[in-house]
């Protein structure tokens, strides 16, 4: 696979060496996917995996204007990772990652019109991460019930307080038990 030609075709992409993937601006995701699907050299006809990832805001060190390292707040975002393979040419994978602007109102284009395999996976990401895929034909909750309001796979999700005593509590279970106790005392007071 001649990835140089691919990179030259779409200069808006960014190669991420640490994860061997291309960071794609969401405006051109469909265009790039269509190229991968139809180009006779790549023939990426199988979209194998679509995964959502939640990146919370974090501190990162960057080089400031005066050349000294400065600590800066990196805003959190949600990310969708696409793994493309080629069935007909038996090659792959090509990994694309698409990031949302912030975590408040995450919107990404849906790839379902090009690849049917994304249909349920995008619904799952919508259900568990809350990313809205514009252009998806049937974007509903898929695993949780329709009345559910949270996005449970997000890193900052707090599950409902239904702790019950366990004979062998440990670590985070113990922490939940303490929280539960505090909650109960607050309710009583």
């Amino acid at each position: 696979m001649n990835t140089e030609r691919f990179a030259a075709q779409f200069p808006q992409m960014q190669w991420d060496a640490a994860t061997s993937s291309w960071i794609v601006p969401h405006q051109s995701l469909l265009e790039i996917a269509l190229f991968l699907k139809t180009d006779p050299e790549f023939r990426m006809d199988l979209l194998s995996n679509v995964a959502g990832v939640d990146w919370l805001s974090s501190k990162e060190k960057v080089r400031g204007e005066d050349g000294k390292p400065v600590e800066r707040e990196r805003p959190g975002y949600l990310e969708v990772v696409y793994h493309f393979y080629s069935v007909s040419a038996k090659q792959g994978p090509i990994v694309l990652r698409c990031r949302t602007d912030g975590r408040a109102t995450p919107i990404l284009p849906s790839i379902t019109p090009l690849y049917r395999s994304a249909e349920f996976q995008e619904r799952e990401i919508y259900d568990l991460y809350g990313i809205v895929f514009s252009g998806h034909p049937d974007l509903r909750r898929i695993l949780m019930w329709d009345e559910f309001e949270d996005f449970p796979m997000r890193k900052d999700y707090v599950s409902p307080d239904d702790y019950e005593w366990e004979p062998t509590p440990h670590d985070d279970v113990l922490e939940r038990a303490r929280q539960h106790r505090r909650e109960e005392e607050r309710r009583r007071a």
Partner: protein
Amino acid sequence: MDDWLKSELQRAGVFVTTLEWVYNQSRRSSVWPLQFGLACCAIEMIATAAARYDLARFGAEVFRPTPRQADLMIVAGTVTKKMAPQVVRIYNQMPEPKYVIAMGACAISGGPFKQGYNVLKGIDRFIPVDVHIPGCPPRPEALLNALMFLQRKIDRQTLGAAQPLRWYDPMDRAEFPVPACGAHDLVPTHTRAIWKPEASPRPLT
């Protein structure tokens, strides 16, 4: 009637027993389970019904797909919060007398998935359970044992007026409220009449 007279009569071809014994014997020998599998344990339930373990030896091989014809509900597998209303509804649809076996760690308490946000921490929060079988999944022998345990439980039921059977009470419908799926959790999270949260027995620091 003492045992000597009983055996003498039996020798003469007369079988004497109580109505209660006949009643219990016929019910315990034909406990029809509901054909209802939730997760991994359901496969062991099928294996129990298959030739090697042969549930038919205990008269319980007739798996009924409809709750209206079933006596026993084997809750085989993880009950999720999305599934819990359906389980309660199916239980309500079963005719009396009805029994419940909670098969496997998940049905008892949530098991390995207990900390999950969508996993019900035990089906006994919503319906009364007669027999619990631990294991993940329990072996087929364990299910057979649970069935024998249930049969012994049926044997102990009396027709006498001292302890009247619950299901002859017209006021006792043995139907339990079906929880609703709320915005964050099931509403209510448990049925108060049959389940109380256990207080933690040791102080948490």
